[in-house]
């Protein structure tokens, strides 16, 4: 019917409610998210080219509780993308395609375990009181 391919993509997402499609979307969205983060990260870090002060200034701007929350999302994205990347690589390389659903649940458990550790470790950064005054 419609020749609009973007519409087709969205329709596919709606019509295929299953683990394969779900993890494909997670993978894609986290992939895009990470790519965008990579650009921002490069922008922040590249201030090192202009010297130590510039670097510390920019780094200081992104180290606060708000960015700590974003950091949790970033790390969640990395883990999801990484674990799922492993899942589809295993399917292609080792022919484990029939087990993809089981692998999905295994990586889901690993993901949640990793996220608990992550949140525990980032916990101090969520409290403004822990930041050195004046930065």
């Amino acid at each position, binding site marked *: 019917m419609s020749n609009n*391919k*973007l519409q087709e993509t969205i329709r596919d997402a709606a019509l295929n409610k299953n683990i394969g499609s779900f993890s494909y979307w997670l993978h*894609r969205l986290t*992939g*895009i998210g*990470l*790519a965008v983060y*990579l*650009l921002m990260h*490069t922008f922040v*870090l*590249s201030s*090192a*080219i202009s*010297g*130590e002060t510039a*670097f*510390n200034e920019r*780094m*200081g701007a992104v*180290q606060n509780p708000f960015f700590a929350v974003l*950091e949790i999302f970033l*790390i969640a994205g*990395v883990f999801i993308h*990484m674990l799922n*990347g*492993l899942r589809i*690589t295993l399917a*292609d*390389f080792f022919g484990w395609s029939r087990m993809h659903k089981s692998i999905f649940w295994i990586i889901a458990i690993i993901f949640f375990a990793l996220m608990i*550790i*992550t949140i525990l*470790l*980032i916990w*101090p*950064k969520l409290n403004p009181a*822990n*930041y*050195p005054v004046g*930065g």
Partner: protein
Amino acid sequence: MAVKISSQSMWTWMFQRLSGLFLGFFLVTHLNVHHLFHDITSAGLISFETVRTNLASSGFWKVYYFLFVPFIVFHALNGLWAIIADYRMPGTLSILIKTAFWIFAAALIITGFFTLKNLF
């Protein structure tokens, strides 16, 4: 007689996975050092100095980060390209975008290398 094949899509596919596996290993370490096990209550904020001390701790890190930049840039841009390429478009447009991606990739890698150089 060997059969002819146009293997570009094979190599990009392969390298997307290899770089992915490499990144997986890399990112976990990188996250540990710079995002997770960096305790601001004892070590303070991440600064030029802390990064430099970290990187200087062994030659290993230098090699590591210099490899990391091209890998992640390739992986990210090739990944984005894969998404765009799903929406099959006319050949000329496709070549145009591909070229833009290559230029962008080169720019990112150069920026990355200069950044690293200044931090070492």
